């Protein structure tokens, strides 16, 4: 296998804002800034694994509440019902909107679970210094980072339903406590994905014996 050298090993730093590559100064200053755009420079995102793990744990704690508590409370003249995320998907499927039911299922149930599982697994794989499937793991991270924001879909659907269905006394919709937890899970997993540094995946692969530090 061809050996690749990381910028970090070679004593270089890439600016995350303007992509300029600069040499790490000998003096080992604490506060390095990009000479072109002034962005603070770090060899790797600071405390990436710790931050990602903490945010993931917080998201996991809130996840059951987000799924079990009602997200909207709907009242019509004849009926009154609490809807959770899953019952919203089932209602969509029952009304015959299969593509929409699939879309909401994907954005609200599959993606949050996938994010928690993938980021948790990647964090663990870095702690264990895996050298296995570097390319695939990096691609998985990019996918999760890209798709993560779309989980907000359900929050917007509920916002919209609540704002629109205020046809007193015929029917009204109120938001339920589940939506707060759900929004929190989406925001926390987004922050977790942002604080994760994908270069750490590759560091295990480029650390060759006797070439560390």
């Amino acid at each position, binding site marked *: 296998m061809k050996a690749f050298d990381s910028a970090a090993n070679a004593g270089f730093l890439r600016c*995350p804002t303007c992509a300029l590559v600069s040499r790490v100064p000998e003096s080992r200053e604490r506060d390095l800034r990009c000479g072109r755009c002034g962005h603070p420079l770090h060899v790797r995102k600071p405390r990436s694994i710790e931050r990602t793990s903490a945010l993931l744990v917080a998201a996991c704690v809130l996840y059951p509440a987000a799924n079990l508590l009602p997200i909207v409370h709907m009242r019509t003249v004849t009926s009154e019902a609490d809807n959770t995320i899953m019952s919203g998907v089932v209602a969509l499927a029952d009304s015959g909107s299969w593509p929409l039911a699939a879309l909401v299922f994907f954005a609200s149930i599959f993606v949050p679970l996938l994010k928690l599982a993938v980021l948790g697994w990647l964090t663990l794989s870095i702690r264990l210094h895996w050298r296995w499937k570097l390319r695939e793991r990096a691609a998985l991270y990019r996918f999760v980072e890209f798709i993560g924001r779309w989980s907000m879909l359900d929050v917007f659907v509920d916002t919209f339903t609540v704002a629109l269905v205020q046809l007193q006394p015929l029917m009204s919709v109120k938001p339920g406590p589940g*939506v707060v937890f759900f929004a929190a899970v989406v925001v926390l997993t987004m922050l977790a994905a942002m604080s994760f540094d994908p270069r750490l995946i590759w560091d295990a692969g480029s650390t060759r014996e006797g070439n560390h530090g």
Partner: protein
Amino acid sequence: MSTHLSVGQPAPRRRILVACASCDTLQTADIASPAETLHCVRCDVVVYRAMHRAPDAALALTVAATICFLMGNALPIVAIEAGGNAANTTLIGAAQALDAADMRSVAVVVLLTTVVAPALELSCLLALLSDACWGGLSRLRGALVRARERLRPLSMVEIFVLGALVAIVKLGDLAKIVLGLGLWSLFGFMVLSATAAFAIERTDLWTRARTA
């Protein structure tokens, strides 16, 4: 100042040092190559993009996107009619309805992602691109690009539009729904801002910026 290339003179080959954002592999990129993008030798992610677009087109697109965004905020997104009752809602009205239902935290998240973040990102882009066209803001350039990068993932207008469409289909059985001009404006904003982002990625905001 302009550079004249005489016929037969080879274009100067220039190689620059780049590091991959995904795997940090240090490599040289031949920026004289005709390829639009150069990919990482190790993980295949784009490490260099040719930035030869003039900023004018990106600025025009951003101005158009700003107009659509303002209209999308001011005009009702949809109207609903059922049993002689009618209601309509704007973007900010939707957040207010959440606030009125004791969901202030979610209302703040909705307002932040659909109004505040896009508005700030548009302001950053307008300032950056006018600087690239006419100069004058070179000292703020780094701060503006950084602010824009921070705001980008928080701006969720396209997700909001999709969410509105899902809600409309959901409520379609219960009541008569009329799509408002606001929704069409937000749709226009989505398309224009995506096109503008595509152009901005290919515009050199750092070295090509002219000084007035």
